[in-house]
């Protein structure tokens, strides 16, 4: 039987602790919520709007947690009606959240190995909690790709590891992509944890095949339920999935993190 018997999640009315804009269109929100207790790096939460014309949860990666104060942090881009509503919340505003969701990054794969933490654009936030919680790696290099000089979270990441920057416009660091930065700075790793746009994840997968390293990538897809029942957010898998019995896995539940070789991207 596949029932886990105990895979507790919660939907609750939480409160905004504080929020600020940290780059054009990018917001940084700390939320006071019991969900902070169960958060693991690479997991996400479902955030609901108060406006009931927009029903579905918005899945947003957890950027960081503050267990002592019962808070978690999300850093998100305003992309539509839901995130637009969230960006207007001030301290004390009600925010309905459900979580914590997804499998998270397998941090144990980093033990004794050289690690890259790769983030591209709005894929950067979850890498902060990975950087914070990673233990016993042989080395850690954070490689982050931005469009321009708006280097959100770079300073936060620098507290935990060396940060290498790539910008599309060349204003800071290596001009180009994270792969360009890896090559320019001659960085090496055995295992990569990555989150970012699909072209970046494909490039990381290609890099791994060429260099014999292993990558764990965080995927996204349009979601409805977020908890594994609706089968909306599937990714094609290389092998038949043990739950679905077809070559599809649920990004919200079986993922969002996958070994890059196991998924067809």
């Amino acid at each position, binding site marked *: *039987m*596949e029932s886990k018997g105990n895979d507790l999640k919660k939907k609750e009315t939480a409160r905004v602790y504080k929020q600020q804009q940290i780059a054009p269109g990018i917001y940084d929100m700390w939320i006071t919520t019991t969900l902070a207790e169960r958060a693991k790096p690479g997991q996400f939460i479902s955030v609901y709007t108060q406006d009931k*014309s927009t029903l579905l*949860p918005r899945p947003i990666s957890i950027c960081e947690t503050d267990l002592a104060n019962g808070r978690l942090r999300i850093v998100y881009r305003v992309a539509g009606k839901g995130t637009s509503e969230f960006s207007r919340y001030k301290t004390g505003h009600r925010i309905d959240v459900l979580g914590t969701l997804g499998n998270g990054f397998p941090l144990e794969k980093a033990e004794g190995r050289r690690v890259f933490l790769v983030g591209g654009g709005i894929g950067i936030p979850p890498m902060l909690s990975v950087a914070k919680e990673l233990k016993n790696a042989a080395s850690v290099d954070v490689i982050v790709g931005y469009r321009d000089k708006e280097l959100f979270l770079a300073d936060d990441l620098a507290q935990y590891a060396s940060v290498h920057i790539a910008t599309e416009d060349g204003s800071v660091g290596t001009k180009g992509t994270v792969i360009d930065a890896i090559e320019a700075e001659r960085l090496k790793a055995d295992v990569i944890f990555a989150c970012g746009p699909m072209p970046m994840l494909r490039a990381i997968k290609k890099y791994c095949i060429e260099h014999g390293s292993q990558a764990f990538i965080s995927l996204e897809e349009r979601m*409805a339920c977020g*908890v594994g029942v*609706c089968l909306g957010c599937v990714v094609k898998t290389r092998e038949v999935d043990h739950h*679905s019995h077809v070559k599809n896995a649920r990004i919200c539940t079986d993922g969002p993190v996958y070994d890059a070789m196991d998924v067809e991207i």
Partner: protein
Amino acid sequence: MNTEITIAGVTFKNPVMTASGTFGSGMEYSDAGFVDLNCLGAVVTKGVANVPWEGNPTPRVQETYGGMLNAIGLQNPGIDVLIERDLPFLKQFDTRIIVNVCGRTVSDYVEVVEKLFDQPVDLLEINVSCPNVKHGGIAFGQHPRSLFDITKEMKAKAKQPIIMKLSPNVTDITEMAKAAEAAGSDAVSLINTITGMKIDVHKRAFALANKTGGLSGPAIKPVAVRMVYQVANAVKIPIIGMGGIANAEDALEFMLAGATGVAVGAMNFVNPYTTMEVVKGIEEYMQQYGIEELGEIIGAVK
């Protein structure tokens, strides 16, 4: 106060069920601690076919005003997995089990109902919104003759009572309901999703990979209530009503329109506790109005 209902000789502790496709086989909502399955009248499982189906390419889901579109494409692990994995799980709970059945041809459906013959399942819900390959992709449930034929075949081959799940994408749903009744169906459930479309104006493309999808959620409730009312006044067999139920009041609307059972679907995604709240809310309503049993309100609005 008695919240029990009976459909085709099967008694349910209350009228509240899950809408197929929105609840899996109950494992996820139960394991998460969102829903105590013992509280529900029934769990209606995701549609299952004779073999695993992969479903459609993504994006499969999109939000719409007060609702959502889905084009999952009936991905399912096949009947053998349902029997081996999901039914033993559901048997642990004190709730009725209704298995939703899909197929591409009538013989596909027959294979599933025959495999379920000796299984601990209380009723079968036959999904006739699956495109019928033999008739050029027209769903079984959109043509009264094919609906009649498949219903007859299901009644001939199945052990459990049959519920025909009706598609709203027809000119006259009462014609479909009558065809199901004439063929011997024990009950009907409605509505399934309404075909819809969304276009992304910035990408200048369809928002769903499948182009069209099924609309569900609160946006469809008025259409669903109207159809339940029409069907209730056209056939004698019991109705399980669904379409945007978000709370007990919505459920009661369906019952007053003529539904004996009610199912919660898309709103599970918005509030995972919805089914339990609907059960409680119905009890409170009965308390408030001194209603002893639900027969007093089913179809009471004429």
